[in-house]
C-alpha cells in the first residue's frame, strides 16, 4: 500500500517530478510507462527512499517513507553489481542479514531461476550485459520483499529469457510479493503482466493516464480487449497513432495496411 501526496522532486532548479498524488493499494503489479527522461526512475527512487522529496509526503503501508524501508527489493536501471564480488556474492547482498545457513540455498535457487548457474562464481567484469541485468534482478528478488521496485528489468534480454524472467516474476507475485512497481517501455509487457498501468508525462513527471487492466489472466495478447488497451496506450505514447501522416516513417510502415 503506497500513498503519495503532493509529491514533488526538484534537482536544483530542475523540476523533475510532481506534484503527484498516487495511491497503490491491492494491485499486485503496477506498470509505469512514459517517455524517456520523464521521471519514472525518479519516482521509483523516491519510493525506495533514496531521494528525499522536495515537497509533499509519501508512505508505505501507513508509515512515512523517510529513507529505505524494510523488505524492499530494487532492481536499478543499471545492474549496479559490486565489481569485487562474484555473481553468487552479489546476489547474497540482498539478504546479507539473513542467518548464514539460509543464505546459501536461497541464492542458489534464484541463480538457477535466472539461468546463471554456470556463472555463479564469475566476476561482473566477465558477464554480458543481459547476464549482469539478471544478476541485478536476482538480487532484488532473493529477499522475498513486500514491495518490489523494478526499473526496466528485462530491457537487455532476448525474447526467451525475457519470457522466463516474466514468468518467474509472476510466480513470485502469486506466492509472496504483494506489491510490484514495474517500469517498462514495452506496452505489451505492461499489459501482459500488470493489473494497472500508469502512464507518465514529463518532465516534470505527472500522471497522464491511470489504467486498470481488468483482463483475465493469463492474458491473451490477441484478444480485442487487449488490443483496445494497447491501442489506447500507444495512442498516448505515439502522437498521431492511428492516422498515417504526422508519424515518422518506421511507425507509418508499421501501420500501413
Amino acid at each position: 500500500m503506497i500513498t503519495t501526496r503532493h509529491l514533488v522532486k526538484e534537482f536544483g532548479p530542475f523540476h523533475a517530478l510532481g506534484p503527484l498524488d498516487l495511491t497503490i493499494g491491492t494491485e499486485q503489479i503496477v506498470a509505469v510507462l512514459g517517455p524517456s527522461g520523464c521521471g519514472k526512475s525518479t519516482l521509483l527512487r523516491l519510493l525506495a527512499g533514496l531521494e528525499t522529496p522536495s515537497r509533499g509526503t509519501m508512505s508505505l503501508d501507513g508509515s512515512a517513507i523517510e529513507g529505505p524501508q524494510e523488505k524492499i527489493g530494487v532492481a536499478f536501471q543499471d545492474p549496479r553489481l559490486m565489481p569485487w564480488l562474484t555473481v553468487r556474492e552479489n546476489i547474497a547482498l540482498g539478504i546479507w542479514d539473513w542467518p548464514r545457513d539460509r543464505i546459501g540455498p536461497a541464492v542458489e535457487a534464484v541463480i538457477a531461476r535466472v539461468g546463471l548457474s554456470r556463472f555463479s562464481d564469475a566476476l561482473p567484469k566477465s558477464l554480458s550485459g543481459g547476464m549482469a541485468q539478471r544478476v541485478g534482478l536476482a538480487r532484488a528478488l532473493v529477499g522475498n520483499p513486500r514491495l518490489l521496485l523494478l526499473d526496466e528489468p528485462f530491457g537487455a534480454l532476448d525474447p526467451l529469457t525475457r519470457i522466463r524472467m516474466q514468468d518467474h516474476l509472476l510466480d513470485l507475485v502469486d506466492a509472496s510479493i504483494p506489491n510490484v512497481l514495474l517500469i517498462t517501455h514495452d506496452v505489451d509487457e505492461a499489459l501482459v503482466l500488470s493489473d494497472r498501468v500508469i502512464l507518465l508525462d514529463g518532465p516534470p513527471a505527472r500522471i497522464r493516464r491511470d489504467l486498470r487492466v481488468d483482463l483475465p489472466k493469463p492474458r491473451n495478447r490477441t484478444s480485442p480487449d487487449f488490443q483496445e488497451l494497447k491501442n489506447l496506450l500507444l495512442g498516448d505514447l505515439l502522437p498521431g497513432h492511428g492516422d498515417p501522416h504526422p508519424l515518422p516513417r518506421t511507425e507509418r510502415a508499421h501501420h500501413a495496411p
Partner: protein
Amino acid sequence: MSLREEAAAIRTGFLRDRKLPDPGVLWKGLAPFLLPLAILALWQSASVWHWINPLFLPSPLQVAEVLWRFFSEGTIWRHLGISVQRVFLGFGYGVAVAVLLGAVTGYSAFWRRLIDPMIHGLRTIPGLAWIPMFILWFGIDETSKVALIAKAAFFPTYLNFMSGIVNADRRLIEVGQVYRMTNAQLVRRILLPTAMPYLFVGLRQSMGVAWLVVVAAEMMGASSGIGYLLLDGEMTGRPQIVVACMIIFALCGKATDMAITGISRRLLSWQDTHERAA
C-alpha cells in the same frame, strides 16, 4: 595446416605461444634492473675517471666493501632486525588507526567535519618538532620510536583511504542503503572494497614513510638500527657507510613495497582496468 593458415596463426599469436620462446618474458624480467645497472655503471665510471670528488661520493667498490663487512661480520643483522621491527610495529599501529579513523571520517560527515580539519593541520607539523613531546609522552625507549614511525605512517593511509571512501560511487552505496545495511556493514561490505585501490596506494606510501622516519626515530635514544648506523656514519664523516645504509634502505623499502603490491594485485584482481601495451 596450410601454409597460409599457419602464417595467419603465427601472426595472431596462436602458434607463438606454443613454439617460440616469448621475448616479452625476458624483457619483463630484466627491465626493472636496467636503470639501476645503468646508474651503477655511471657511478663506477665517475669514480674511476674522477668526475666526482670521492670525498662526497665514495666509489662503488668502497661501498661494496662496507656492505661486505656488514654482512660478513654479521653485525648488520642486529641493526637490521631492530629497524625492521620498529618499522613493522610503527607501520602496523599507524595504519590500523588510519584505517579505522579513515573509515569513520570518510563515511560520516559528522565526524569528518569534527576531526578531519584538525588532522590536516597536524599533518604538516615537522617530525623534528614532535620529538620533545614524544620523549615526554613515551620516554626514550622503543615506544617513542614506534610511536614516531606510527605517526608518520598514519597520514598517507588515512588521507588516501578517507578520500577513497568519500569518492566512492554513489550508485553502489545506494545498493547497500536499499538493503538497509548498518553503518558498519556498509563500510565493511561496500565502502572498504571500493576504497581498496586508494587504500593500497596509501599503504605503499605509509610503508615508504615508515622507512624514511626510522632515521629520525633512531636519533631518539637508540644505539642500534640501520638509521643509527647511517647517523653515525654521517656524524663521523664516513660517506661509504652512509651510502651503504642508503642502499640497505632502498632494498628494504623495495622489498616491503613489492610485498604490498603483490597483495594488492591479488585482492584487486576484480578491477576492470586495462593493461596497456608498450
